[in-house]
């Protein structure tokens, strides 16, 4: 009976999880898509992933050093940012562009706000937005995946071909079909429909992690089962995007493609499960999550269907990020028993 006893506030027991374990779950959820990207884009995928992850981690360490703050790498959020940034870049992007993007994502996107938890915008999306503004050309050069281009060097091999083959993304084709508003574009649409199966498994041109809908779904379902993410945001994003695309195709089937093709293409599935669900930049309440998710879905489709860019997920997320504190304010919770007396 001579032991030293601890005294603290209740509760005295805690659920066995941590920020680190949540981030680790997200990384595990990304593994199928990482594997898919390595299969489809081989060395290019490895270079982009490695340069983004390593530079994100180094930039975060340097920021902590300069700010004289304790090391925060243990929470693994820098790794997650690195993977998500890499996934939203085209495979042909040079490694030094990855480093610049990572620097912007971590330094401006996250650390200047005070680090994890204090940032307004999703850091990876902020980094990608910066790269889109600075390196517009590189950001829209799409490598043909390995299943279609057998000459692509395997991981570790030195490239012998002069340059990687490139082609338009499915969303690029859709946009082209839309641009020529006067003539019906049934041929283009038929071409897009033809590659729908490839879009599901991911063997189409596109960003590293955006291509394989199935691998992303697998990871997303893992996160839902582990309850790492709430089901509301992905459901709201995908449902809203589906409805918007459905309305468009019903109005004009000669120019628009079916909603399923929209869901399977670009960043929608990836973003719905892995970007929009970033807890830091999404609202806290359930009602807020519905509004946020619906906003992301609708905004994405607005850009895709009537905007200038073929893909709009990044802008949609950044826009909704910026109003998520406002959403929180307008969805303030009322206690179960009503408002208390002053």
């Amino acid at each position, binding site marked *: 009976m001579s032991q*030293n006893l601890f005294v603290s506030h209740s509760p005295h027991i*805690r659920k066995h999880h941590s920020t680190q374990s949540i981030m680790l779950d997200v990384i595990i959820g990304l593994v199928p898509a990482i594997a898919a990207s390595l299969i489809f884009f081989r060395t290019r995928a490895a270079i982009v992933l490695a340069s983004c992850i390593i530079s994100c981690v180094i930039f975060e360490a340097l920021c902590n050093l300069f700010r004289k703050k304790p090391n925060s790498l243990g929470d693994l959020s820098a790794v997650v940012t690195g993977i998500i940034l890499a996934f939203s870049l085209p495979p042909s992007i040079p490694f030094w562009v990855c480093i610049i993007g990572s620097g912007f994502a971590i330094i401006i996107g996250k650390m200047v706000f005070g680090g994890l938890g204090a940032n307004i915008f999703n850091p990876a999306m902020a980094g990608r937005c910066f790269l889109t503004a600075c390196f517009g050309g590189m950001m829209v050069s799409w490598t043909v995946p390995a299943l279609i281009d057998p000459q692509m060097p395997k991981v570790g091999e030195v490239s012998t071909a002069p340059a990687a083959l490139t082609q338009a993304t499915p969303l690029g084709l859709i946009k082209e079909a839309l641009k020529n508003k006067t003539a019906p574009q049934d041929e283009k649409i038929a071409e897009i429909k033809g590659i729908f199966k490839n879009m599901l498994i991911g063997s189409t041109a596109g960003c590293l992690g955006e291509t394989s809908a199935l691998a992303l779904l697998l990871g997303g379902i893992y996160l839902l089962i582990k309850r790492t993410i709430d089901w509301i945001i992905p459901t709201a994003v995908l449902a809203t995007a589906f409805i918007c695309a459905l309305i468009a195709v019903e109005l004009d089937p000669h120019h628009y493609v079916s909603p399923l093709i929209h869901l399977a293409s670009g960043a929608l599935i990836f973003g719905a499960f892995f970007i929009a669900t970033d807890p830091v930049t999404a609202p806290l309440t359930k009602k807020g999550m519905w509004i946020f998710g619906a906003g992301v879905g609708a905004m994405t489709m607005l850009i895709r269907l009537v905007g200038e860019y073929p893909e709009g997920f990044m802008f949609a997320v950044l826009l909704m990020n910026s109003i998520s504190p406002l959403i929180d304010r307008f969805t303030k919770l009322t206690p179960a028993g009503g408002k208390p007396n002053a």
Partner: protein
Amino acid sequence: MTFKGGVHPPDRKELSAQRAIQTVAVPKQLSIMLSQHIGAICKPLVNKKDTVTAGQVIGNADAFVSAPVHSPVNGTVKDIALCSHPVLGRAEAIIIESNADNQPKHPCPNNFDVDFDPTYYSPDQIFEAVRKAGIVGMGGAGFPTSVKIKANPQSPITDIIINACECEPFITCDYRLMLEWTIQILAGIALISRALNCKNIYIGIEDNKPDAVATFKKAVESIPFANGMNVVAVKTKYPQGGERQLIKSILNKDVPTSGIPPMIGVLVSNVATCAAIAEAVVLNNPLTYRPVTVSGRGVKNPGNFYAPVGMAAGELIELAGGLTEDAVKVIMGGPMMGFAIADLSTPLTKTSGAITVLTPKDFPKRKETPCIRCGRCVAACPVNINPTKIAHAVKNNMLDVAKQYYMSACIECGCCSYSCPADIELTGYIKTGKILVARAKKLMPA
């Protein structure tokens, strides 16, 4: 049959669930707190060196909302002094040295039988007996029961809910009570029903105690005076035994945030309180003993005890085999809402249903990391407020913002802290915020 929010901590009831309630021998010394309840603090009625007998009133107050305290043993008053109180820090207590011999037989409660007739007692008699016996809510709140069972014609009670959830991890004394003292508990319920003239009775038991549910269902059918009581198996989820949550689960009604259950015509009482009521009314025994679970991986031999109020926590822990080598935290109450104590001489009060001893395995010391706004605290909150916003406001000394997020609605159940991946003491900040507000209003000394 449940409420929104809540958490599912591992219940660890297996440590003590099979241990029958054991009446403990009279300890050498007892410290009877003068404040063991909500309401006016008792004034001592005895002086140093006075001789007291078991059941004698030794402290009382005139206020309507209060409850007298009694000596559990024959002995002498050694001192009236400050001693460690689990909630208040230090508080005045009457310290009694018991006579080595010449003690009355241990109170042996289980002598109620199925022929018990509650109509033999008038509502006024029941109220008087409960008031005299010093009975308070034994589930933890400590609200004087006499006040609750005084019929008020202006706002009659329409439903009586018996709280037999025992939703805190580790605690099993109510469960044992339900199995061992079934008839006595039902007699107490019948007396409450008689006092308030209310026949809608719901006995809410969490569905992780199927044998208690079965025992009560059988008893309610076979015992004449208990016919018509409803036994309800509610979902196992913490804090199902919170009165607001249990009312929501059983009646689907919300208690007003600043109000109490009688405002919507509901009375909630814990099973141990019911047993004490039966004893007080029928046997004239004041509340001097209560069931206590001593459990946790930090005690060698967990068990359930029927122990005198005023007994030191340390002595009871010794009866449970003593602390293990790696015990790091001793809690008066359960791990979710109990109070950690530093002083093992802290005495039991009428509301101490458990002593839980944790080891580093249960109680990992981790550092607070930044909030990642994941919303798990919001989802876990059973009263639907936003713990992280409130805690953040309190931390930055913005009490007006904390109030805008309805800090006062917090029931301090601990679900938010429990579910926080960043290990933020959300409940702790909110409790602190409430104290700061009370001080600013001069309701509490600084």
